[in-house]
């Protein structure tokens, strides 16, 4: 019995100390990792979607409170007017989170462009969501009033062949971005006013 208790106590103490230490590491490294992702993964993807913007969307970003979380918003400027916002979102794919950047044109409430930023999908299949530009191009110009779905589910997005789960995740991710956008639109409009000049 004594040995039993000792085993439980030792393992519990080890795990608690380890968890505590790691949460400190996470706090320390978290902001640095975010910067790195911003520069190396998300930044290039967002600049690619908004390549015609007159100002750099990554420098022109701000944070906004959405419920309990903070969202990064990237702003695109066209013809001297800030009218496009990029929201980040993610949904569960085949092998983990599929992270996306979704650009929305605020004047017409349509998708300006989308891009997959972070993912762990299968190379050659799901990974095409990031690599094959024709898949993401299907979203551009479409209205956000209805949710996006792949054609198998009755929507109008053709899924990547062999990667229906990933394609669904991309749709779900875009939908979550548009849902957040609809909720935050008044604040966003207030925020980006005058950012064009």
């Amino acid at each position, binding site marked *: 019995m004594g*040995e039993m208790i*000792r*085993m439980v106590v*030792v*393992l519990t103490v*080890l*795990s608690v100390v*380890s968890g505590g*230490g*790691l949460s400190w*590491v*996470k706090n*320390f*490294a978290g902001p*640095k*990792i975010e910067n*790195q*992702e911003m520069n*190396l993964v998300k930044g290039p993807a967002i600049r690619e979607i908004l390549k015609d913007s007159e100002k750099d969307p990554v420098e022109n970003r701000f944070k906004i409170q959405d419920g309990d979380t903070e969202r990064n918003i990237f702003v695109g400027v066209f013809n001297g007017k800030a009218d496009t916002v990029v929201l980040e979102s993610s949904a569960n794919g085949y092998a983990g989170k599929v992270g996306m950047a979704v650009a929305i044109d605020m004047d017409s409430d349509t998708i300006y462009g989308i891009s997959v930023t972070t993912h*762990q999908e299968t190379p050659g299949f799901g990974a095409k969501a990031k690599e094959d530009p024709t898949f993401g191009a299907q979203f551009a110009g479409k209205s956000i009033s209805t949710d996006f779905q792949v054609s198998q589910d009755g929507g109008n997005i053709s899924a990547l062949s062999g990667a229906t789960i990933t394609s669904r995740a991309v749709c779900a991710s875009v939908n979550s971005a548009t849902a957040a956008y609809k909720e935050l639109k008044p604040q966003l409009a207030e925020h980006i006013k005058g950012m064009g000049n």
Partner: protein
Amino acid sequence: MAKSLVAEFTKGLWKDIPPFRLVLGLCPVLGVTTSMKNGIGMGLATTFVLLCSNMLVSLLRKLIPGKVRIAAFIVIIATFVIVVEQMMQAYAYTLFMDLGVFIPLIVVNCIVLGRAEAFAFKNRILPSAADGLGIGVGFTLSLASLGAIRELLGTGSLKGDVFGFLPYDFANIFGTGFQPFDFAVQAPGAFVILGLMLCAMNLIPSK
């Protein structure tokens, strides 16, 4: 404690050098050594985990009950692996993207667990640290040389840096007419080159 600390350290460099002498932990060896840069990065990450886990296991060896030692080792090793993973993401993000899943997989690397079980759990802290460091440096050298051979044969050049420092760039070592040997950077090439290196090492007589 007949053997000195130096002996514990140097055995990892030749006599027990992983993965050649202890043919263990081949998964990252085959997976990441497509270039010297990745080999060095993976080797150094593993060295850090080995050194820290060996020291901590040795320090706690009287407290950890024998029946749950493996579980305790895994907790200790996993903790250090997450530290490495976070730090690599924070300071060497591109390297982290190249190594990808192999960093978390250090948790189940049998070299790390093997040293904890076979050495650190039975020895005092300084010899354990020397052992971990020696095996780690040996592992790094192996991965770096395997990576260098594969990168040279596969691309004809050696190019990269060590965690953003010490950049090196040797372009077209075999001259510009060199036809890249793609096989070397693919997985089967890793097996063949690893085998040839092991063979060459066995030809050198050991005392």
